[in-house]
């Protein structure tokens, strides 16, 4: 054994603190993180600069004299094409849209998923499959028919139309979520309840729901994020007085009136993203579970 070292191998292999392989991995991850964090950084520093600083300064260099004036302006005074009330009306509209939409869409989908999983009737699976396929159909295909339908229902251009739309388009993925979840619960629980004489609704409220807190959480997070961030449906179906925050933001930033105030624009952009971001940071693993659920088919 030609062993030129005096140390005989024993125990764990000594590893240099900065092994080239590990360093490379961390380097790649950190560099990529910069690509992801850069826009956030730029947004933040721009939103507290004054306009001269923006025009003559550097987009990457923070200001030495930050001010929250642009934020206040963004919230209360910024001008869209129609009025100068800032983002605030949009915020409240978004709240008015999101809360009922989340409730209705989850109510309809959870019950539908429950029916398909536990009380299947003839054609239940057919409806489910069509629903899934339908989730891939581009929204554009159903835009006009939905205008027609909501007009018939008398709700076009009102809050109810948007709530209806979000229920419709949330249905495929939410029903999938709930159906898979209910199917994964131990069947003995359900059978025991039926033997005890409990019916559809009683089992749903007294047995299924208490056991389904995680999946309802995931559904809520998915819906709140998706609905709050929506633009297309808000613009088409909500009506002029009910524009959500995203539409309001777009109108403010793209308005052709007056001088472009980049700091206000960035402040407005951050404000619009604040609600979903907060949910994201707070909910952590539920958010990831929601994403994974979106991808797990059957």
């Amino acid at each position: 054994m030609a062993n030129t070292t005096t140390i005989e191998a024993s125990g764990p292999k000594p590893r240099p603190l900065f092994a080239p392989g590990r360093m490379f991995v961390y380097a790649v991850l950190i560099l990529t993180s910069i690509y992801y964090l850069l826009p956030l950084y730029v947004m933040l520093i721009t939103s507290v600069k004054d306009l001269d600083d923006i025009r003559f300064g550097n987009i990457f260099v923070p200001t030495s004299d930050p001010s929250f004036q642009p934020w206040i302006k963004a919230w209360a005074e910024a001008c869209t094409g129609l009025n100068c009330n800032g983002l605030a009306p949009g915020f409240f509209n978004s709240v008015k849209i999101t809360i009922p939409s989340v409730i209705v869409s989850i109510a309809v989908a959870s019950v539908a998923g429950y029916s398909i999983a536990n009380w299947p009737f003839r054609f239940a699976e057919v409806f489910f499959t069509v629903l899934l396929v339908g989730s891939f159909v581009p929204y554009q295909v159903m835009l006009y028919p939905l205008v027609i339908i909501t007009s018939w229902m008398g709700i076009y251009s009102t809050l109810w139309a948007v709530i209806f739309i979000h229920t419709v388009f949330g249905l495929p993925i939410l029903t999938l979520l709930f159906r898979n979840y209910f199917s994964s619960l131990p069947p003995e629980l359900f059978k025991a309840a039926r033997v005890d004489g409990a019916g559809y609704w009683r089992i749903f409220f007294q047995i299924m729901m208490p056991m389904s807190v995680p999946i309802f959480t995931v559904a809520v997070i998915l819906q709140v994020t998706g609905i709050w961030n929506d633009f297309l449906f808000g613009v088409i179906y909500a009506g002029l007085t009910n524009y959500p925050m995203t539409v309001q933001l777009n109108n403010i930033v793209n308005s052709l009136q007056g001088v472009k105030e980049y700091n206000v624009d960035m402040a407005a952009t951050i404000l619009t993203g604040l609600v979903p971001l907060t949910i994201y940071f707070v909910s952590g693993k539920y958010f990831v579970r929601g994403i994974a659920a979106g991808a797990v088919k059957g």
Partner: protein
Amino acid sequence: MDRPNPLFRNLNSKIAALPMMLIVLFVFVGGTVWTVASSFTNIKTLPIFTPQEFYDNWVGFAQYTRLWRTPRWITAITNLAIYGTLYTSFAFIIGFALAVFMDQKIRLEGVFRTIYLYPFALSFIVTGHVWAWIMNPAFGLEASVRQMGWASFSFDWLTNREMSIYSVVIAGLWQGTGFVMALMLAGLRGIDDEIWKAARVDGIPKWRTYIQVVLPMMRPVLITTFVIVASGAVRTYDLVVALTQGGPGHSSQLPTLYVYETMFVGALSQGTAASSVMLLATAVILIPWIWVEFVRKKQA
């Protein structure tokens, strides 16, 4: 409580599922059928419903021929092909690469994942405006980098007709790769540990194990992710509205914008024709998924 009529059996379930069934029938099925049917007519502003009306206004494939003769549509479709291909491929490559790096038992995995995934929580409008600002011709990236010393640095993608669609790609990737990474990582974690041990005993280097052993094992995850990402690319709308508004001119036009611009302003059947083409594109994307779900599952 058993009634003789099978329609009343399991009544509660059917009633509860009624909203879902109505939506499936009238919105998803009915809406699609209506849109496709309307694309064969020449209606302009008012929708039609009765078979008689359809018969009267039938023009066959005229709308489609007109569509393919419209330069703006050609631009839109070309852009979709460019955007779709670039976005999907890079999202996969970057997403998978990131997932592999994250799979190396690194510290602070949670921190990195939070960083890669937070853009996914944002609205496309937010993403679009932020990147519009970064790529701002006067005060954004180009000006700042030049200010920092590289006098010849140029980044005019936003105002350059040739490059505007690529700016959408950059913004889109920023938003979407975290999602692909999260899915790929979940897939990687599902690989049996003993496969890794066997490869190690066999002397297979790590990178080769990822590519020749692990990746083929992840086929279902890959296909599902592909379908979701690609069909999402077809639907891109908010991002373009915020980032380029379809411009400069119509150089970053996409089919979704084209539909919006025709459907509600007097060219209804054109809009439905455009939508139908989008539907076709999505159907093509769905084919690998359908093949896996139904054909291969029957074999297994």
